[in-house]
Every structure is written in C-alpha cells, then in structure tokens.
C-alpha cells in the first residue's frame, strides 16, 4: 500500500477510535476528579490530582449491589453452560424417540421475541410469589438457553466419533462420556457462550428493574440508575459507580475477545 493511503487510513482510524473511546475515558477521568471540576469547559480528559478517595467512598456504598450482580452473572453462566451443553449433547449424539421433533420445536421458540413473554412471565412470577426475589433473574434464563443449545449441538457434532466409542468400550455411562470425554472437547463453544452470558447478565437493566423492589436485592446497573439522587449525590461518585460497572466487562472482553467474536459471528453465519 502506498504511504499516503496508509497514513490517511491511520488518521481516519485514529479519529474514529478517539470518538469511540473519549466518553469512556471521560467517565474514568470524571470518577477521579474533585466534584467541582467534573463539568468543566473545555472538558478535561485527565484529572489534575486524582481523587482516589472517591473509589473508597463508592466501595462503601455499593458492595451489596456489586455482590448481587456477581452472583447473578455466576448463576446464569454456570446454569446455562450445564443446561445447554447437556441438551446440545443429546441433540447431537444420542438417539431417542422424538429427538428431531423436540429440536425443531425448541428452535421455533427462538423466533418469538422476548417482549411477548415479558408481561405474562411477570404475572406468573407474581402468582408464585417470586416478585421481589432474584429467582426471575436466573431460573427462567438458565432453563431456556435455546440459542446456546443450538451452538453446543453444532460443537458436539464436530467431535470425532472414535472418542465416544473408546469411552463406551471402557464401560463409561452416557453421563460419564458426556462429562469426562465430550465436554472437554467443546471448550471454545463453552467459552463463547460463557462470555456472552456473563455480559448479558451483567448489563441487564430491564429484568432487575421490573422484578426487584428491595434495595438489598438490586443489581449494580439499576442501583446506579435508580438511587442517583439519594446515594450518589455527586457526579464524580456516580461516575465511579459507572466505571466499576464497566471495568469487569472490558476485562472479560479483553481476555476472551476471540470467543466473544466467535459467538457473534456464529450468530451471523445463520444469515
């Protein structure tokens, strides 16, 4: 490529990168500023003397919300990986009556958008006394991972049959073959689904917003959005909270970028 083209490409790409990163940089920088300097014209992107004490204050305010977010993300990730990999294994590798029919019915449910379930699920949960508990934020999700099941099935289909046969000859049970022999072969798919599920659960706003009333059960994003005036009287503290809610996501994304993108492009392949 000619040097001129290359340079102009760098310039354009850097401008875009600045536009995409500036708000995030501003968020972190605002979280470290004394309150009086948060909104200043022109905007400062680097704080003059960093107020690390802001973070000490925020961690005293949010441990409950942080723990709730971590707990729900953990339950969702582990639960979905177990349920989806079991079903995916059965659909890919076991023979049983009604298998293909069940698979098609499951796939068909994925065309109905979430909005159709939203209100009736809420009513059902209210009837069984689950409103203002955390069950609606993980039980229904863990038990309906249709798309993850589809991905797991694809992944199990690629595992060589010989591995399975060797297990059978050694007298392993079906569950033993699934758990000890087949599952370790699907680590990339498990990682992709795990990263996806973590991000979805961690960033969920709607679920906790409609189901949780008690403050001590609330997750971090909703706590930030709802208790703004009451808790986070300063913008700098609010930005600390926002930063804390973003950092784990960026960390997970950086470490597992490959799997995340793999998960996304797998979705895209269907088109």
């Amino acid at each position: 490529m000619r040097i001129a083209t290359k340079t102009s490409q760098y310039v354009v790409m850097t401008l875009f990168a600045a536009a995409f990163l500036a708000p995030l940089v501003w968020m972190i920088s605002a979280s470290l500023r004394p309150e009086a300097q948060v909104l200043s014209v022109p905007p400062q992107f680097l704080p003059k003397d960093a107020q690390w004490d802001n973070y000490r204050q925020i961690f005293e305010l949010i441990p409950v919300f942080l723990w709730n977010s971590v707990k729900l993300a953990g339950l969702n990730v582990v639960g979905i990986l177990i349920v989806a990999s079991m079903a995916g294994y059965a659909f890919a590798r076991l023979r049983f009556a009604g298998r293909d029919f069940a698979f098609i019915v499951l796939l068909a449910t994925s065309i109905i958008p979430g909005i159709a379930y939203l209100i009736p699920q809420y009513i059902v949960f209210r009837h069984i006394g689950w409103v203002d508990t955390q069950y609606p934020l993980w039980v229904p999700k863990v038990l309906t991972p249709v798309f993850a099941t589809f991905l797991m099935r694809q992944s199990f289909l690629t595992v060589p049959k010989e591995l399975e046969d060797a297990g059978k000859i050694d007298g392993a049970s079906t569950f033993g073959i699934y758990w000890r022999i087949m599952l370790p072969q699907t680590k990339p798919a498990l990682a992709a689904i795990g990263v996806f599920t973590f991000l979805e659960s961690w960033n969920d706003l709607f679920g906790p917003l409609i189901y949780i009333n008690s403050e001590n059960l609330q997750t971090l994003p909703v706590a930030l959005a709802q208790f703004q005036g009451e808790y986070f009287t300063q913008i700098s503290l609010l930005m600390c909270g926002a930063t804390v809610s973003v950092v784990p996501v960026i960390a997970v994304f950086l470490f597992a970028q490959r799997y995340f993108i793999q998960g996304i492009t797998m979705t895209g392949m269907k088109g």
Partner: protein
Amino acid sequence: MATLSLTRGRPVAVAGARRERRRQNLVGWLFISPIVVGVVVFQFFPILVSMGASLTSWNGISAPKFVGLQNFRDLFGNDPLFVQTFKNTIYFTLASIPLTIGVGLVLALLCSRPIKGVAFFRTAYFAPYVTNVVAIGFVWFWFFQPDNGVINGMLGQVGISGPQWLSSSSWAMPAVILVSVWQGIGYPMIILLAGLQGLPEEYFESARIDGAGAWARLRYITLPLLTPHFLFLLITQFITSFQVFGLIYVMTKGGPGHSTSVYIFNIYQNAFGFGKVGYASAMAWILFAVIAAVTFLQWRLQKRWVFYT
C-alpha cells in the same frame, strides 16, 4: 404386566434390544429435560396467558374481565400515546439502522486492510458495545448538558451555539439516536468484518487484472458479495431497535413531553406503572405482529437484491 407376558417367549436379543431402546429414550429425554421443562413453563405457558390477557381488562391481580377486542379498538382508535410512541419508534429505527450499518461497514473496511495495530482499533470501536447502557447513558447525559456539556462546548469552539439537546423535544431523539449508534456499531462491524474476511480472493485478482480501481471493486464485487450479511443485519437490527429501552430509560425517561417515549417504554409504563396488564399485553402482540410482518417482508424481498454465490 402386559409387557412382561409379551416379551416372554421371544428371543432374548429382541427383548434386550427393546429394553435398550427404551433406556436410550429415557436417557435422551433426561438430558434435554431441563430445557424442555423451561421452555414449556417459561415460554409456552406465558404465551398462552398473554394471548388470553390481551382480550381482557386486567390489572394482573384481581379477576380479569373479558372484553374481546376492545383493547385493540382503543389502541388504534382512541390512544394518541400509542400512535406517538409507535411513530417515535419508527423514527428511531429508520435513523439508527442506516447509520449503524453504514458506519459499521466503513469501520469493517478500514479494519480489514493489513495495517499495524488493527487489533487495538477493532477493540476501541467495539468497546461501547459491551459496556453497560446505564454507564453510557450517564456519560452522554452529561455530555449533552446545554451549558457546560462537552458536546455544546465543542460546538462552541467552532462557533455554533448548540441546542438544548435532551430538554428540547426536537433534539432529544437525535441525541438518543446518536448515542445508540455510537454504542451499537461494534456489532455490524464484526459481522461485516467476518464477511469481508470470507470473500474469495480470486474475484479481486481478476478484477485488478481487468483494470478495475478500488472504488469499482468495492461497488461491483465487495458490496454484492456482502448482501447476505446486510440482509442478516437489517433483520436483526430492526428487531433490536424496535425494542429499544435502556438508553431511553436512563437518558430521558421518554421526555421531554413524550418526544422520546418509544413503544417498549409505553408498554413498560402501562404494565408495570399503571397496572394495565391486559392493555399492555395487547400492545405486546401488536409489536410482535409488526416485527413478524417486517421480518417476513425482508425475507421475501431478498430475491430482489441479495446476491448468493
């Protein structure tokens, strides 16, 4: 014990095979039982409830009262907010889809060319997509402050006095759209990048030999070959932007006036704010019908413009 008497007297192998098949069926269904139970309990059953509820006047607590199609009649004939939130949603969708896919394509093209540090740029463009909508909403909320916000500060530097943004009923929606595009671009970028990387090199080689310039190669080879990806993006982006909620909730709560109140926000308020569960269910079904119809239409129209190799 009918089964026992039937199997007795038959060759052992047949009975064994049958027992084995029954065991296999049982094991298979045990493996899929969690998801089967989940889908029946948390999807099929609620869907039935929702269909029924849309025909009732119901607050979700006391006994529902059957009203037939009254909810639908009220929505279409007697509810200005329904019409307005529907229009707002269309406005949001029609503006954000071309912008996300268009800029996403530019970024994908930039990132697909061999250049040092491309991983950094890709990550930068993608970062907003994985971050929390609440955090993003807050940051941009302060950016859009009329007097001491970053946006008007920058506009002021070039001599433009910026609008009131979130407190102006004509500028609040463009502001929300801008943020949503900024956040959402990573997704089409990744899909198109995957598409670009899968294109067969031979086409470009022979075009180059025929003397086609960069622009001609883009126009006549790259874009047609990417049309399946564009179709996929059109369908998925339509479904997600038609259900936008988070940014609206954090940045404007639907205001000022009802200028940024989108359809889902209206459903949310009716169902969980005003306790009009039957009414909100009817709204959900209308949304479902619109999404299904548009998706079907896009699918049918693909023959006209989607190019498969």
